[in-house]
């Protein structure tokens, strides 16, 4: 789960990460009230989960209530690279002497957290890493040992931070590591990490990703979720416990097992089509789960045809066939279905589908054949529509 800046800061605050004072606002009036509380000048910041907010006009300095009103009005509902602004973060303006960068990422390859520090903050860090790798100090922390003071000193000296802030920058990294570990984060990025003229170290922005698998340890994480950001189909799918990702195309996909579904998307693209979604119904999918899945797939108005690609291991193909027949009766789809069932009880499944003799349901024997067929049907649907 990716967090909005202000929710990420709420999490960091619990670990005493130094931050500037602020308050969230969903309306212009709330923004003004927050600013009055904080005191001027303030910064009005768009809350969206995408970079480049400043360049897009989503971050503005305001010296009085009128300016807050004007900026809040302009930024709310603004579209920033495809993300609509629903909330603002009104923050005390911070004087900046230097902009640094700090991050902790979950390094899968090294099997350890990777802590990074650079004095080249405020810009794209991938660019810094590519152009001036020596400006980015990095180290892996043994998760069994945890972050030690020497880690902080080493990073601060190697990054070349100003001598007088070596200690507070190290302390800041220690608090960030405590939050990373304590909250089951998989990413924590502070860009910029600022040094104020009076030599305080402040996390001015926060990008935090939390591990959904650890939600059972953190009941409070549920409040950090912004489901209104989610697409309607994705929200519907998550309420039904399905693994669904919306895509740009027009061919609905139903499958079992993440790898096979990914492969199905590729084979459809290979055949010249464009998938409308990723949907993994999981192992042992029962008839009701199938009907729920089909409902989600068809609720996307772009879908012109649906491909069912199932390999039955634990999942029994005859169960899947029954589920498709039930879903068909229940939902009366107007788009064609292509069904490819292989594996446990596949012969019985094919017999069930043949007996049901549903209009516009096409059985195919192979994955490649099914992909070609569904692409062809989606195209002919386009022509007749």
């Amino acid at each position, binding site marked *: 789960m990716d967090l909005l800046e202000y929710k990420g800061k709420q999490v960091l605050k619990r670990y005493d990460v130094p931050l500037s004072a602020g308050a969230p606002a969903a309306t212009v009036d709330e923004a003004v009230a927050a600013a009055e509380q904080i005191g001027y000048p303030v910064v009005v910041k768009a809350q969206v989960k995408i970079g480049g907010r400043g360049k897009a006009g989503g971050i503005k300095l305001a010296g009085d209530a009128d300016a807050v009103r004007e900026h809040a009005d302009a930024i709310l509902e603004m579209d920033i690279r495809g993300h609509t602004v629903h909330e603002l973060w009104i923050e005390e303006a911070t004087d900046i002497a230097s902009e640094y960068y700090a991050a902790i990422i*979950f390094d*899968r*390859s090294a*099997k*350890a*957290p990777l802590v990074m520090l650079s004095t080249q903050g405020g810009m794209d860090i*991938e660019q810094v890493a590519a152009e001036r790798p020596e400006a980015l100090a990095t180290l892996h922390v*043994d*998760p*069994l040992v945890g972050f030690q003071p020497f880690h902080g000193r080493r990073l601060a000296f190697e990054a070349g931070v100003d001598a007088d802030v070596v200690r507070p920058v190290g302390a800041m990294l220690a608090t960030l590591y405590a939050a990373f*570990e304590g909250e*089951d984060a*998989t990413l924590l990025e502070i860009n910029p990490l600022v040094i104020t003229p009076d030599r305080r170290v402040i996390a001015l922005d926060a990008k935090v990703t939390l*591990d959904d*698998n*650890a939600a*059972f*340890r953190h009941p409070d994480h549920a409040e950090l979720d912004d489901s209104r950001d989610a697409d309607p189909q994705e929200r519907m799918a998550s309420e039904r416990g399905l*693994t669904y*990702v919306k*895509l*740009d195309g027009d061919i609905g996909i139903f*499958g*079992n*097992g*993440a*790898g*096979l*579904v*990914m*492969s199905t*998307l*590729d*084979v459809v*693209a*290979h055949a010249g089509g464009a*998938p409308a979604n*990723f949907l*993994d119904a999981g*192992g042992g999918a029962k008839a009701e789960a199938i009907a729920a899945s089909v409902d989600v797939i068809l609720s996307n108005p772009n879908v012109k045809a649906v491909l069912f690609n199932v*390999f*039955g*291991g*634990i999942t029994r193909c005859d169960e899947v066939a029954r589920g498709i027949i039930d879903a068909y009766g229940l939902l009366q789809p107007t788009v064609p279905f292509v069904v490819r069932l*292989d*594996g*446990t009880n596949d012969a019985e499944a094919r017999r069930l589908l043949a007996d049901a003799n549903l209009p516009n349901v096409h059985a195919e024997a*192979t*994955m*490649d054949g099914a992909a070609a067929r569904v692409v062809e049907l989606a195209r002919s649907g386009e022509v007749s529509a």
Partner: protein
Amino acid sequence: MSIIVGTDTRLVVSGLTGREGTYHALNNRSYGTNVVAGVTPGKGGQDVEGIPVFNTFRAAVAETGANTAMIFVPARFAADSILEAEDAGIATIIAITEGIPAHDELKVFNVLKRNPDVRLVGPNCPGVLSPGKANVGIIPAQFFKPGNVGVVSRSGTLTYQIGNELARSGFGNSTIVGIGGDPVPGSSFVDVIALFEADPETELIVMSGEIGGSAEEEAAAYIAENVSKPVVAYIAGLTAPPGKTMGHAGAIVSGSSGGGQAKIDALEAVGVRVGRTPTQVAEIAMEILGA
């Protein structure tokens, strides 16, 4: 010969008394796997269809000589169960459980790597099958028969798909290893490919990877230096958009890393043939083995 599991496997199942644990452990036993014990704290002294249940791994190992553990407990208990199995001296731990927190997996990996005698496969994997010898996990064994193709995969159903296409063309498998779809798998492609390279029964290695991480690129580098047997690969998720997790916690293209095409390029650069669809993988395998 086979790798990881075989006729000498003595299996203890953590979570044997749960619904799924019972079902799959009995399935494994009826396939011929020697299931010697279960572990469920508080249920020591009971049995499941004649399989004795112990309170601790330590007791299970002492009483039955178990040498392999299958982890079937819910995600919140799984890391603890893996560590307990290692502590009790179990050499091979196969973790089926999905949804384990990434930080727990990190801790488990770093504890286990200090013990050179232990191997973890998974978590979030379908297990390991050596056709005709032993099945530990949830791989549907009926689709596979003994043979000379070793398969290692991040995905369960995709393994069955590829394996089934091979079987239809008359090929069997030495061992099928599901390493799982999580960000921190206990065993990597490199670990399993090294075992297949050393296994006299394996003549061809099929690896089925997917987007996310860099395990496939690391495998390519390893193959170039260390592997004499032919390797055929498949990479799923080539068309997945960046920033979206495709079902498996580990399957995500983030920024410039983890993309499918880079993995294919890395593998092809070292002479690994990469099928563009599961069917093509089977066709290439047949061509190499001269079917």
